[in-house]
């Protein structure tokens, strides 16, 4: 007997095929590499650096000092190392990005599956709520939410998550409707399966790949949203890339020639957002049957 059961072996070949298709587009692995680097930086920062350097009263560098050997990315208006702020800021940006995307996906998937599964007035009510969130300027709503709920990382996560699930819900609903039309759903009902059974055993596994691809894209959007919120003043109280951009703007870094203070967080945001988008698009192309074969 082989040590693997049939299901295990099939799972293996399935993931091997998935990896082969993912690799077929160079953009996917490239994005994944950038992401891996960013996550590693975020995880290793507390082990390798001292957060005391983020304290303005204990900063040692020159004010708005250009890049030097001691401070490879220069210093900010209080003499803190921009590199140190970037590495610590990556933790906040990534955490907020992941958590709010997760929140948004949970809401979006639940609403989407429910709206696709239950016909009639419950679906109509859910979809009107979704439409409402879809047409509402989500940035303004998030700003208001953040202002009402007060500062803090949790607030920012909540504000972004609650305002960005509507498009996911629409996508998941469409896929749910397609799955629900299959005869095996009728068979599951005839076997005695209730709503919960149909939704969790048949619909959810079927939409899960879409959810995964969509979450990846959502993280990118959430990081941009976090930066925007921070730039507009709704900050989490910790050093983040968006907060750094805000500070560089407040202190006139761009006009006084301190380009490192503007470019460093800006490029970091661009790189990470692009990486998430590349990975998300590649996942989508592999996992979404409707896009399979397209974009090659």
């Amino acid at each position: 007997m082989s040590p693997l059961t049939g299901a295990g072996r099939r799972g293996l070949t399935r993931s091997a095929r998935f990896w082969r298709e993912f690799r077929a587009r160079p953009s996917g692995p490239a994005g994944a590499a950038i992401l891996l680097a960013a996550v590693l930086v975020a995880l290793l920062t507390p082990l390798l650096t001292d957060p005391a350097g983020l304290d303005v009263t204990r900063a040692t560098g020159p004010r708005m000092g250009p890049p030097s050997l001691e401070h490879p990315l220069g210093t900010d208006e209080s003499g803190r190392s921009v590199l140190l702020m970037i590495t610590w800021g990556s933790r906040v940006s990534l955490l907020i990005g992941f958590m709010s995307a997760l929140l948004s996906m949970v809401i979006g998937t639940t609403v989407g599956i429910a709206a696709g599964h239950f016909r009639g007035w419950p679906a109509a009510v859910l979809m009107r709520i979704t439409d409402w969130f879809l047409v509402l300027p989500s940035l303004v709503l998030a700003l208001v939410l953040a202002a009402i709920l007060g500062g803090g990382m949790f607030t920012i996560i909540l504000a972004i998550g609650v305002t960005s699930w509507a498009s996911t819900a629409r996508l998941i609903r469409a896929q749910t409707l397609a799955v629900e039309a299959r005869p095996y759903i009728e068979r599951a009902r005839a076997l005695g399966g209730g709503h919960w059974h149909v939704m969790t055993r048949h619909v959810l596994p079927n939409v899960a790949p879409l959810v995964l691809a969509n979450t990846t894209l959502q993280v990118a959007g959430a990081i941009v949203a976090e930066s925007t919120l921070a730039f507009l003043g709704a900050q989490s109280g910790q050093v983040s890339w968006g907060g750094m951009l805000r500070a560089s703007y407040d202190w006139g870094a761009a006009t006084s020639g301190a380009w490192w203070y503007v470019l460093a967080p800006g490029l970091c945001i661009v790189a990470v957002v692009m990486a998430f988008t590349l990975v998300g698009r590649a996942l989508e192309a592999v996992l979404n049957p409707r896009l399979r074969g397209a974009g090659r």
Partner: protein
Amino acid sequence: MSLLEARDVHVEFTARGRRTRAVDGVNLSIGEGEIVALVGESGCGKTTLARTLLGLERPGAGSVRYGGAPLAYTSRALRAHRREVQLVLQDPTGSLNPRHTVYEAVAEGPRIHRLPGERDRVAGALSRAGLRPPERFFERLPHELSGGQRQRVVIAGALALEPRLLIADEPVASLDASVRGEILTLLLRLREELGLSALVVTHDLGLAWNIADRVAVMYLGRIVETGPVEQVLTAPAHPYTQALLSVLPGSPSRVVLSGEPPDATRVPGGCRFHPRCQVLAGGAAAQAGVEASCRSGPLAVLPATAAHQAACHYTAR
């Protein structure tokens, strides 16, 4: 003794303000260990009737009775009903979730009903459905099986609940001719071994002849002729049955029906078959003096008895 019975069942759908009378007054009973064929062309309401008997559709009027008691539409009662009456769909490929293994597909019912001894139950159901040795099929996915094997998996999934009645909606329509016989033999053997009753919904009179004890011919939401299969198919009383039989290979003369195909949103008055009836069009009804009643005289709904009977003014005269 009837096991499952439809009593004056009506099912209507409303879409865009148009009322579709899919099932428009049907009495039908299936006895213990009996195989009944429900025959009719597409759109005549036979699938809706089958779904209603399963409790998947709720009749607008009339009732479905199982073992003499009317079916309640609470989720608990429906769940209990599903253990007794099971469904086999037309398309075995579509009826199996492509991501589920054969084991998972067959175990789905027992898991829903939390039945003990899942593994033995699945193995037993698979081998009764003719997939032996069952262990060899456990980890297969539907796309690795042939059409006939898939239909056997669907049947095994139904058998795993140990039902007393199987409703098969066109069970062999999407299968190769060579596999058809095997699946039909399987249904007959299940009746012999387990005493399983069946309602076989089909548009194929030949299939009804091969498998059924009784046949009910449906036209536009009503049963127009019913009776023991030998009597109905050798001596059809209703012009519609006669027309259906006349187009089978080997029949001496062929009746081609004229007029529009039936539309359940506009059920004709009088006999609902009269716009297409060859007896009426040929003038035989006028000679017999029933033409007026054909066009406007209402027909009673046939009772659910085993005797050969037809809903026709011309035959009844």
